[in-house]
C-alpha cells in the first residue's frame, strides 16, 4: 500500500464509528461458524457480518457483489482471532483505494494460519484443559467452584478479544503484523506449556489399572503393582503411548479410535484383565 499517496487515502476514506464496528462484531460472534463447510469453511458468516460496514463504505450494491465474490473464498481461523482479522480487513477496506480488497484478502490469508495456531494453543488447549480438569474434579466431589472459575476465565478472555477488536481497526494491520514475531514465540511457549500439562494429566486424569494377578506358592502377585514399580501409572502411560502411536497411522481416524477404545475397554474389563 506504500505506493498510494496519503492524500488519496484521506480523500476517500470512510471512517467507521465504534457503533458500526459493534454491529459487525455482534453479527460475527453470533454467527461465525454457521454454514461451516468443507469447501470454504467459515467464509459465509464472514460476508454476512461485514455487510453493514461494507455498505457504509461503498454504498454501491454492484461493487459489493463483486467484492463478496472474493470474500466468499476459503477462510478458516480460530474463531476468536477471526474477528481480529475481520477488523483488520475493514480497516483496509475503509481506505477505499483501488487494491483494497486484494490487499485485505492477502492479509486475511496470511494471518489465518499463524493466528489459528496461537488461538488453538491458548483458547482451546491450555485454558480449557486446566480449568476443565479442576472443574471436573471439584464437581465430582460436589463443588461448583471449579466450574465458576472455568466460566469466569472463559468470559473474561472473550471480552479481552472483544475489546481488542477496536484498536485492531484503528491501527489496521500493523497492530497484528508488528507483533508477528512475538506471536510466533507466544504460540511456541504455549504449546510447550500444553505438552507439559498433558504430561501431568497422563498421570492424574487417565485411569487404567491392571486387575490381573497370579499366585506363586503363598505369594499373590498383582500385575499392576509390579508394573508400577517400573514406572508409576504404567497403565496410563502405556495407553496414551498406544493411542498416540495409533493416531499417527495414516488410515486411522479419531472417530474410529473412540469405538475401538470403548470396545477394548469393555472386553478387557469384562475378562478381568483391566479394572
Amino acid at each position, binding site marked *: 500500500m506504500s505506493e498510494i499517496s496519503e492524500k488519496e487515502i484521506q480523500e476517500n476514506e470512510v471512517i467507521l464509528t465504534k457503533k458500526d464496528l459493534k454491529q459487525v462484531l455482534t453479527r460475527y460472534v453470533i454467527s461465525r461458524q454457521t454454514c461451516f463447510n468443507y469447501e470454504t469453511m467459515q467464509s459465509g458468516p464472514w460476508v454476512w457480518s461485514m455487510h453493514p460496514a461494507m455498505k457504509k463504505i461503498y454504498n454501491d450494491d454492484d461493487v*459489493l457483489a463483486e467484492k463478496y465474490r472474493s470474500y*466468499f473464498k476459503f477462510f478458516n481461523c480460530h474463531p476468536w482471532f477471526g474477528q481480529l482479522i475481520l477488523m483488520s480487513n475493514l480497516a483496509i477496506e475503509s481506505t477505499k483505494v483501488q487494491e483494497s480488497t486484494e490487499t485485505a484478502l492477502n492479509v486475511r490469508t496470511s494471518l489465518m494460519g499463524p493466528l*489459528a495456531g496461537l488461538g488453538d494453543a491458548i483458547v482451546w488447549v491450555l485454558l480449557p484443559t486446566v480449568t476443565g480438569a479442576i472443574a471436573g474434579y471439584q464437581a465430582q466431589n460436589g463443588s461448583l467452584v*471449579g466450574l465458576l472459575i472455568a466460566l469466569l476465565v472463559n468470559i473474561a478472555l472473550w471480552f479481552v478479544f472483544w475489546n481488542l477488536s477496536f484498536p485492531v481497526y484503528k491501527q489496521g494491520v500493523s497492530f497484528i503484523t508488528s507483533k508477528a514475531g512475538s506471536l510466533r514465540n507466544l504460540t511456541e511457549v504455549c*504449546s510447550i506449556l500444553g505438552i507439559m500439562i498433558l504430561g*501431568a494429566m497422563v498421570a492424574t486424569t487417565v*485411569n487404567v489399572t491392571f486387575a490381573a494377578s497370579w499366585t506363586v506358592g503363598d505369594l499373590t502377585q498383582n500385575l499392576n503393582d509390579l508394573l508400577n514399580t517400573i514406572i508409576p501409572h504404567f497403565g496410563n*502411560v502405556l495407553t496414551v503411548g498406544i493411542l498416540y502411536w495409533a493416531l499417527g497411522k495414516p488410515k486411522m481416524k479419531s*472417530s474410529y479410535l473412540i469405538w475401538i477404545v470403548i470396545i477394548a475397554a469393555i472386553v478387557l474389563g469384562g475378562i478381568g484383565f483391566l479394572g
Partner: protein
Amino acid sequence: MFTPLQIILLALLVGVYTWQKYNLQMLMYASVVLVGVITGLIMGNLQVGMVVGGTLCLMSLGLFGAGGSSVPEYSVGCIAGTAFAIAMRQSGQEAVTTAMTIGIPVAALGTELDVLGKTSGSFFVHKMEACSDKKDWKGMGRWMWASQIPFIGLWVLPMILLTTVGSTYVQSFINAIPAWLNGGLTVASGMLPALGFAILLHQLPMKKYGYFILFGFVLAAYANLSILAIAMLGVIVCVFIYQMKEENDKRTAVATAEVGGDNEDE
C-alpha cells in the same frame, strides 16, 4: 418418564448449547459440567448432574475440533446421560454408570453428527453466494441462518426422540445390562481421557518439544503436585523461555541491521 416441560427444556438446552459451541463460545470451558448442572436442575437432582458432569468432563479433556475436525461431543452425552439417570431415580455410583452407558455412545456418535452438519454447510454457503450475486442481502442472511436447521436440528431431534418414544427402550436396555458390561464401561471412563490427550499431542509440536511431557509427568507422578501447581510452574518456565526467545530475536534483528549497514558503506 419425562414430563413435557422436561422434554422441551432438554431439547432447548441441546439447541442453545450447540449454537453457542460453534458461534458465541462464551460458555465452552468445562461446558460438560455446566450442562450437567443445568440438566440436573431441569430434572430436579443437582447432585447427580454435578457428579455426572464432573466425570464426563474429565473424559472430554483435550478434545477440541481444530481446523474443522470433528471430535466426540461429551456435553450432549452428559445431557442425555444425566437426564436418564435422574429420570430412573438413581443416585451415586449407579447414576454415574447409567449416565456413562448412555452418554459415551451419544458422545461418540456426535463425531458423525458434526461431520453431517458440516457437509450440509456447502449447500447453504452456495445459496448465500447466489443471493449475493443477485444483491439480495436479506436473502443472504436468511440462507445463512437456515443452515442452523441441520446444524442444530441434527442434535435436537435425536434428543427429542430419546426422551419421548425412545425412553422406554433406553430404560429397558439399561436394566438389561449385565454387570460385566458396567465394569467395562468404568474401565472405558478411565481410558477415554487418554484418547483426547493423544489427539491433542498430535496437534502440538511433539517433534521439537516432546521432551517437556516428562517434566509434567514427573511433577504429577513422582512429586504428586496438583494440576494447578504444575500449571503455575509451567508458566514460570514458559515465561522464561519466551523472554529468551524475544531477546534472541532482537539480537538477530540488530545483527541483520548491522550487516545491512556495512553493505551500504561499501
